[in-house]
C-alpha cells in the first residue's frame, strides 16, 4: 500500500546519486581553483581562465570523440599523433601555395581517413581498439615528421594566422569551436537515434546487433568523427602556434581519456554523459595549467597526471561497484 511512496524515495535516491557524482566533480574543480590560486594569485583571473579554456580547446574536442568512443566500448590512442599530423599537413599545404580552405578540406579528409582505418582494424581484423590505435599512433607520428622532414612548418598565410588570433565576444575562436562542438555532439548523444545506438552497443554489442542495430557502422562513424575532431583541433592548434609542429600534442589522448573518465564515462562502456565530460575537461585543464603555474617541475607533472588518471579509474571502479550493489539491493527488494 505504501509501495509508491517507497519507490518514490528510491528514485529520488537514484537522482540524488547521479547528482552527487557531478557534485563531487564540481567540488574537486573548486578545490583545484582554491588550491592553485592560494599559491599563485594570477590563477583565478579572467585572463588565466581564458588561457585555461584556450589550452582546453584541443583536449576538449578530442574528449568529445573519446566520450562517444568509450561509451561505445571503444577507445583511441591516436589523437595526439593525428592532431600533430593534421596541423603539420595543413601548414605544409598552405606553404605550398594551396589556398587555405582547400588545404583544410584535404587535411580533414586525411584525418577522417585515419579514423576510417582505425575502425577498419577494429571491425575487420578484430583488433582491440587500444592496440589498433596504438598502430596509428606510431604511424602518424612518423608521417607527421616525414612530410616536413622533422622541421616545424612556419605559417605565413594571413587567414590561417587569423584563425589562431580571432576573438568573438572576447573569447578566442578555438574556444568557440569547442563550445559549439560540445553542444552539437552533446545533443546528438542525448537526443538522437544515433546516440541511443552508441549506448546500446557499448552495453552489449551482441545483443544490440541481434536487436537490429548495426554495431560496425556505429563504430565507423565514431572513429571517423574522432578523426575529424583531431583534424580540426590540430589545424586550430597550428594556427595558435603560428606553425605546424610534428612533435606537438604528445599525451593529448592521455589527458582526454582522463577527463572523460573523470566526467563519469565508464571505461567499460555503456555509461556516461557529455555534461560530465565538460566538467572533466575543466578539471584536468585547470589541474595541468595549475601545475605549471605553481612551478611543479615538469618531470613531476607526469607523475601527477598519472596519479590523476589512477584517481579517475578508481572512482570509475567505485561507481561500478556501487551500481552493482544497488542492483543487487533492488533485486532483493523485487524478489
Amino acid at each position, binding site marked *: 500500500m505504501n509501495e509508491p511512496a517507497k519507490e518514490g524515495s528510491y528514485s529520488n535516491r537514484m537522482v540524488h546519486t547521479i547528482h552527487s557524482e557531478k557534485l563531487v566533480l564540481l567540488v574537486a574543480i573548486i578545490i583545484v581553483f582554491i588550491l592553485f590560486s592560494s599559491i599563485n594569485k594570477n590563477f583565478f583571473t579572467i585572463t588565466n581562465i581564458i588561457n585555461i579554456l584556450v589550452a582546453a580547446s584541443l583536449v576538449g574536442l578530442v574528449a568529445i570523440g573519446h566520450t562517444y568512443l568509450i561509451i561505445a566500448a571503444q577507445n583511441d590512442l591516436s589523437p595526439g599523433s593525428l592532431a600533430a599530423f593534421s596541423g603539420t599537413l595543413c601548414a605544409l599545404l598552405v606553404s605550398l601555395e594551396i589556398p587555405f580552405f582547400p588545404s583544410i578540406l584535404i587535411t580533414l579528409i586525411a584525418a577522417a581517413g585515419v579514423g576510417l582505418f582505425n575502425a577498419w582494424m577494429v571491425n575487420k581484423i578484430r583488433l582491440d581498439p587500444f592496440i589498433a590505435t596504438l598502430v596509428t599512433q606510431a604511424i602518424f607520428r612518423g608521417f607527421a615528421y616525414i612530410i616536413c622532414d622533422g622541421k616545424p612548418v612556419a605559417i605565413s598565410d594571413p587567414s590561417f594566422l587569423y584563425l589562431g588570433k580571432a576573438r568573438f565576444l572576447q573569447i578566442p575562436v578555438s574556444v568557440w569551436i569547442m563550445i559549439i562542438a560540445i553542444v552539437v555532439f552533446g545533443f546528438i548523444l542525448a537526443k538522437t*537515434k544515433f546516440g541511443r545506438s552508441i*549506448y546500446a552497443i557499448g552495453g*552489449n554489442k551482441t545483443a*544490440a546487433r*541481434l536487436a537490429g542495430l548495426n554495431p560496425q557502422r556505429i563504430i565507423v562513424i565514431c572513429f571517423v568523427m574522432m578523426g575529424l575532431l583531431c583534424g580540426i583541433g590540430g589545424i586550430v592548434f597550428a594556427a595558435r602556434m603560428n606553425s605546424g609542429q610534428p612533435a606537438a600534442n604528445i599525451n593529448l589522448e592521455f589527458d582526454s581519456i582522463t577527463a572523460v573518465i573523470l566526467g563519469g564515462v565508464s571505461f567499460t562502456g*555503456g555509461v556516461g554523459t557529455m555534461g560530465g565530460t565538460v566538467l572533466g575537461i575543466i578539471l584536468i585543464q585547470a589541474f595541468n595549467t595549475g601545475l605549471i603555474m605553481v612551478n611543479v617541475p615538469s618531470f613531476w607533472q607526469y607523475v601527477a597526471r598519472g596519479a590523476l588518471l589512477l584517481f579517475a579509474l578508481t572512482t570509475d571502479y567505485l561507481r561500478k561497484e556501487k551500481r552493482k550493489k544497488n542492483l*543487487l539491493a533492488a533485486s*532483493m527488494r523485487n524478489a
Partner: protein
Amino acid sequence: MKSMLEFRNISKYFPGVVALDNISFQASGGEVLALLGENGAGKSTLLKILNGDYQPDRGQYLLNGIEKHFRTPHEAIEDGVSVIYQERQILMELSVAENIYLGRMPCSKMGIINTRLANKMAQKIISDFGLPISPQTKVKDLSIAYQQMVEIMKAYSRENLKVICFDEPTASLSDSEIQSLFGVIRKLKREGKIIIYVSHRMEELKEIADKTTVLKDGRYVATVTKGEVSEKELIKMMVGRDLGNVYKDLDRNKSIGDVLLEVKNVSSNYVKENSFHLRRGEILGFSGLVGAGRTELMRAIIGADHMRTGEVFLEGKKIVNKSPKDAMDNGIVMVPEDRKTQGILSNLSVKGNINISLLDKNSNKIGIMNPEKEKKSAADGIHEFHIKTPSPDKNALELSGGNQQKCIVARWIATHPKVLILDEPTKGIDVGAKSEFYQMICGFAKKGLGVILISSELPEVIGLSDRIIIMKSLKIVGEVSHEEATEDRILSMSMIGGNNVHE
C-alpha cells in the same frame, strides 16, 4: 562432542534471481544428509555457500554453534569443510601422495620436500580406505572412480575435517564403484563426520541418506527421515505440482492458416542444409539435443550468421536477410537463447531495453528521438506483457528473469513481426512465470503470428507445439505432429535419427 552444521534463514541473490530464499536446515555428525531438488533448485548455490565460494546475503551459517563467514573456499577447508565436486579438482600430472598433501607436503626446515614421508603418510590413508593403489602413481593413470577417491582422501587427510560434501558423486561411476564409494561414506559416517550428499538419484538416496532435505526453486520444502515418505511423494515435493495440467489448460490456436515462412536448403558455417515451412498461427517446435544446430539454423535465417546456401520465402516472396536488422524489417524476429549475453542491454533501463528496436519508429526523419513516443511505447509494452517493474526507468537487470525475458519479447512484438522465433524462452524462469509465458505464446499464435519454439524441455515443446521438427547433428531428421508426439519418440529421434523411428 558431536559436530553440528546449521543454516539459519540463508538467502542468496543474484541480479534478477533469488538463488536461495530463506533456507534453514541442520546436519549432525555421523549422519548423511541428502539435498534433493531439480536443476536450478539451488543445490549448487548452497554448496558454494558451504565451502565459502559464495557469501550469503542474509542468514547465519553455524558450525558447532559458531557463526562462520568464509570468504574463500580455502578458509572453509582450513576450518574443516570440504566439497568434492563433479569436476575433479586434482592435478593430473602429480602423484596420489602429492595430490593428497598439495600445498602442505611434509618438508625439512630448509624447505626441502620429504617425498618419502609423504608417500608413507599417504599409504596409511590409502590402506585405511582399503584401496589397491600406490601413493606414487600419477593421478592421470587412475580411473575416474579412484581419482575421486584421491579427492576424498585429500579432504580426509586434514585432521580437523568436520563436513564433507559430495556433489553428484556417482554421475560417472559404475555400480561396483558406487558401492565402494558408499563404503567410504559409511566409514566417514562412523567417524562422526557430517556428510552432505547432493544427488537426484532416488535409489541412491534410499540406500545412503539418513535424512533428505528437499529444495525447490531456491526454497526449502521439507526434511524427511529415511523411510518416512515414498519415492513418489519425494518427487512431488521436488516438482511441487503436476505440470501436465499447465499444458492441457492452454487456450491453443485451432485455426492454422496458409504457409507463412518457407525455408529452402538454408545452411551456414555452423549448420547443414535444411528446409522446413511454417504456417500462419502455427507453433512449430524445434527439438533436439544441445548442439543439434537448432539455434544455428535460426541464426542463419535471420542473418545473424552468414547464410551460405538456400532461400527464405515470407508470404511467398523471397527475402534476403543480411543482418538481424534486415530480418526485423522483413518481419522475422528472434528472442535469443542467452538472455544475459544476447538479450538484455545491461546498462539500459526497462524503457531503453523495450525501445531499442523501435529507434526508427520513435524518432523523426533526421533521427531526433521523440521522448513522448518512447515513453508511450515502453508503457504499452509494460502494460501488455504485465512486466513487473517499479518504474520504466529502472535498470532492466533489477527485474526477475521472467520479467527481463518479457522486456525482450515486448521489444520484438512492438515491431509487429510476422514470424517470432523463441530460443529456449523459459530457461531460468520460475515455474509460475513459465505458465504465463505459455499463455502468451499461444496468444501470439492466435493473433496469426507464426511461432518457432526452440526448447530443450520436452514437455514444453510437446505441450505447446502444433508440429515438432527434430534436429540431430546439424540436420533436420524428422517431424511429428502434436498428436503423435511423445517424449520417448522425440528423444529417440534426437539421439538415433529419423529413419529408425519410421521403421
